């Protein structure tokens, strides 16, 4: 599940992910990203503070979102990565590819 919010006078779109991003739920993110490409939005932010789980399908959708925003010369930021998603992003070295703001939620109980 995700919610979308426009900030910075409509130049930033924050997509807040919640629950699981996996093979069953990636379509929602993909559709939302497609609808935010180009136009007046200058930056896409994925807020993962309430994302509890991500699998390789979810990672694929995040990477695809990054590539598409880059192709449209839009900024891309992942915010508040923590827990299991943080573990996956570290393994796949995604922090080297795009900007990740991990906030304060580094580690938490499983």
């Amino acid at each position, binding site marked *: 599940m995700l919610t979308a919010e426009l900030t910075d006078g409509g130049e930033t779109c924050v997509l807040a992910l919640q629950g699981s991003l996996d*093979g069953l739920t990636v379509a929602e993110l993909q559709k939302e990203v497609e609808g935010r490409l180009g136009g007046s939005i200058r930056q896409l932010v994925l807020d993962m503070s309430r994302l509890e789980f991500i699998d390789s399908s979810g990672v694929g959708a995040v990477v695809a979102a990054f590539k598409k925003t880059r192709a449209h010369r839009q900024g891309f930021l992942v915010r508040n990565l923590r827990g299991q998603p943080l573990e996956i992003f570290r393994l796949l070295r995604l922090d080297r590819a795009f900007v990740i703001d991990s906030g304060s939620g580094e580690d938490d*109980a499983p």
Partner: protein
Amino acid sequence: MPDATEHFRFVLPARLEYRDAARGFLDFVCRRLHEQGALESETAHQVVSAFVEAFNNAVVHAYRDLEPGTVEVDLRLRAASIELQVSDQGRAFRIEEVREPDLDALPEGGLGIYIIKQFMDDVRYESSQDRNILHMSKSLLASGGGRADG
């Protein structure tokens, strides 16, 4: 030391929507092991991640173009390790032929087996005439005094 084992078994339809039934239980077990000092939180995340990728592979790849069957999940808690087996009756693959992804190229797929191999201590895949089994294990922390009973 006696190797007392707790064994849990799930037999689930090979559909992604059933995966979280077993994942929820595995989450519970890992949380319990974490509270006992036998599993770091990061390691718990790794075990759950590996399990999900294994289940996904069985559903998405093993049963592709086949009548969906079942995925059997066996979880064994031993004194020094947590072991998972994910079995299917679909199409087998050769795990040694799965290429490691080029992470610098930012792949959007082909990451499942890599995640499993990186996150688990031991990974084996065996295939017989009627069943494919992915075995995975992860060592528990010695500081947890081994797995506490009850």
